[in-house]
């Protein structure tokens, strides 16, 4: 019994080696060791992280790590504290935020129906496929000069780049979602007299939602990348712009603060979509159950 439980836990914690280990009678650890073993999966990375931070700070203080190149945790926090008190910072946040949201939401609004249509109608898919594949394989960056040429240097160009970055993962994933709709379930609906519209709403769309959400999650990363790259290329405001200027003026502390702030926002975005995925995928049978 203990062996099976240990194996299952090892699996859950993510390692094959423990599972592959031949069963061996071992004295049960007690007390502190047991407490540690139970939480090792969180304690170990936490400890390494703290150790890394401490080492970093120490290196900066003793001069082993040149602060010009690497800064230090305390300096970054100090720079950040200064930064967020400036209204200019919040203007940057707002600009980047708008570029992100408008592009992201617009892309989803168009990509999901598009993905459903191309998934449902074979002819639509075959018709659009060449351009979709070509665009998907092209790095959006390459289109940046063209986009700026067309819509100007302002927020619009970033919005377009964000749009392009979110559009394709959502279309592709939604497409897959439609293609993997269980044909049997569609037949069940049909046998009860469900109209085409009802079949779409009650069978196709619910099965598609988890896939679309995956695409949207990928889209968050792409959107952030799009905002940054657009602002690096040409901008006078925004978080990417902030990081860029800090780099140009060799202000390493501000630079790293900005980069970490952006990273934090991106992670928040992923978390948000992740929780949506959990909520709307709740009906899926857990992997491993019959």
């Amino acid at each position, binding site marked *: 019994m203990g062996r099976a439980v240990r194996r299952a836990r090892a699996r859950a914690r993510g390692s094959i080696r423990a599972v592959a280990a031949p069963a061996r009678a071992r004295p049960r650890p007690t007390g502190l060791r047991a407490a540690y073993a139970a939480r090792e999966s969180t304690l170990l990375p936490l400890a390494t992280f703290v150790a890394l931070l401490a080492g970093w700070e120490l290196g900066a203080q003793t001069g082993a790590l040149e602060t010009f190149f690497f800064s230090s945790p305390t300096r970054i926090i100090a720079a950040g504290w200064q930064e967020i008190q400036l209204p200019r910072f919040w203007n940057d946040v707002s600009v980047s935020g708008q570029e992100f949201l408008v592009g992201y939401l617009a892309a989803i609004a168009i990509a999901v129906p598009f993905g459903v249509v191309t998934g449902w109608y074979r002819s639509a898919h075959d018709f659009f496929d060449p351009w979709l594949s070509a665009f998907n394989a092209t790095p959006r960056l390459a289109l940046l000069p063209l986009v700026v040429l067309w819509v100007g240097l302002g927020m619009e160009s970033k919005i377009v780049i964000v749009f392009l970055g979110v559009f394709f993962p959502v279309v592709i994933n939604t497409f897959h979602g439609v293609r993997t709709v269980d044909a049997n*379930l569609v037949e*069940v609906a049909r*046998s*009860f007299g469900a109209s085409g519209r009802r079949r779409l709403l*009650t069978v196709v769309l619910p*099965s598609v939602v988890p896939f679309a959400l995956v695409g949207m999650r990928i889209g968050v990363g792409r959107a952030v990348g799009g905002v940054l790259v657009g602002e690096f290329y040409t901008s006078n405001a925004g978080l990417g712009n902030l990081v860029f200027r800090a780099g140009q003026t060799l202000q390493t502390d501000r630079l790293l603060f900005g980069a970490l702030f952006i990273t934090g926002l991106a992670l928040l975005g992923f978390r948000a979509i992740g929780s949506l995925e959990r909520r709307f995928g709740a*009906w899926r049978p*857990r992997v491993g159950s019959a």
Partner: protein
Amino acid sequence: MAELEARDIEMEYERRDGTRVSALEGVTLAIEKSEFVSIVGPSGCGKTTLLKIVNGLITPTGGTILLQGRPISQNSRDRAMVFQDSSLFPWFSVARNVAYGLECQGVPAKEARRRVQPYLEMVGLAGFEQHYPYELSGGMQQRANLARALVVDPQVLLMDEPFASLDAQTREMMQAELLDIWSQSKKTVLFITHQINEAIYLSDRVVVMSARPGRILADLRIDIPRPRTLAVKRGDAFRAQEDRVWQLIEQQARLTMKATQLRTEGAAG
């Protein structure tokens, strides 16, 4: 006049390489009101195809289906099908699933819920209305499946190997329960199965189909009196019937097995 009639049903289709395959040939069958008829036959003999034709999901290449003397329409409100395993929508609750047929007919949600309740109780799922399919066992899912078909009050109930994915013990219990429910509603039932003893236990008549192209080989009346308990399966009369049907099927089953062998050998060679 028979309640449900199939006259000279033919089903042909074209394979990708252009060859024509005949799935059903000259199938003629008549079912009386409140009769429970089972169809048994080897794999691939077209049983499911026939059922789908009766349900209106497929249009046969020849022949007609008559319900109470009139040709059936594609819109199948007077027939309901119970599918094989896992045909409940995983994203809807049990109650919403069972109410689906009503929903398709335009019944408002509240009214549908009201109508669904007695059927849930009938199949023993009272209290599970808000559960999701993945939380239910196989037997419970099939009960919900049955309730979904019964709730639309069809003239004919079509069942496509509904117990195929259940383990042997659950299967036996579901058979007894099905008979129990059926005796309350006395629907006309067309039931498809692989298992001969299941067919004999449940039905008034057992129809034996040949291997592809599917034809009706025999139509046997089962004279075992109702109500039938599971113990009936161990009786002599039952065993005798089973032998009769098996003799008819055995040859067909061998033909099918040989055909599958040849096909895989051909593919590998």
